[in-house]
């Protein structure tokens, strides 16, 4: 049983009738999820070009496999889980967590606002797990169960971890939050 089947079975959906996505289905899914997923990956990796690579890789992976029927919430969770795992693989290969953005080499394709710069700086000083938890909970509105499914953590440990992550982030954001 692969990860997609595990997701569907855990949610009570039938595992039979797998199929690869049609181009129309993919376009609809992509238009709905690509932008928030890219922002999530930017926050995780603190690097726009890496986030771009991971975004494309996530969708290419989804297109390669035959998926069981999933409702939109399950598909979203599966996408985020794939993206999260790819980001972690990237960190593992690089053997470091994303360093604070260097003003000399920062992404200059679009000048970030002060708010974005403050958030980027704060995020670069928390762990990858903390970034995942805070973003999924407060921006994406994921439930603790969904966060557990995406991150691989136990549902019971989400609440205290999230509390500590939020406290840390609030201190770093200082006067912004």
């Amino acid at each position, binding site marked *: 049983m692969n990860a997609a089947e595990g997701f569907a079975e855990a949610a009570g959906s039938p595992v039979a009738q797998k199929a690869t996505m049609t181009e129309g289905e993919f376009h609809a899914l992509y238009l709905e999820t690509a932008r928030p997923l890219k922002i999530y990956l930017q926050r995780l990796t603190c690097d726009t070009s890496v986030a771009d690579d991971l975004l494309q890789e996530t969708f290419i992976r989804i297109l390669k496999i035959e998926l069981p029927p999933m409702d939109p919430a399950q598909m979203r969770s599966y996408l985020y889980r794939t993206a999260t795992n790819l980001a972690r693989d990237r960190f593992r290969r690089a053997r470091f967590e994303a360093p604070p953005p260097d003003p000399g080499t920062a992404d200059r394709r679009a000048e970030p606002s002060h708010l974005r710069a403050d958030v980027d700086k704060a995020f670069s000083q928390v762990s990858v797990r903390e970034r995942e938890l805070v973003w999924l909970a407060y921006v994406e509105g994921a439930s603790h169960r969904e966060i557990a499914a995406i991150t691989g953590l136990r549902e019971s440990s989400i609440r*205290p971890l999230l509390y500590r992550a*939020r406290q840390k982030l609030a201190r770093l954001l200082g006067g912004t939050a």
Partner: protein
Amino acid sequence: MNDHQCLSESRIAAAVRSGAWTPELLRHVAECEHCAGVAAVTAVLCASAAEPVEVPAPGLVWWKAQIRRRLEARERMSRPLQFFDRITGAAGIAAAIWGLLWVNTESTTLVALAAGGFLVLGAAAGSLYWFANRR
């Protein structure tokens, strides 16, 4: 309520995301330190998420996925050919060694043992390949 939770936390975060504040939630966030913190962090993060971001066109990603699929299928199909290329190369070397032994030694036993050894190695390699690639 304890330091790690407030039952209204998720509703407060949802209100920040949607902008739909009820009088009850406004009163609560003014009274609850935990939820006030949640509201503040959520507001900052959501504001930063609202900034413009570029994503590749869906057609481009779809096209890349199709190319990747074809390349991987081609690689899977060529794997047996690469394997048998190596086998024939090894068989050629083995035949040359066996030929040298046959010409240069009077021991037919040694020659026969060498031939048998090469056959066993070839069978083992073929079995390993089949085992590794069976569906």
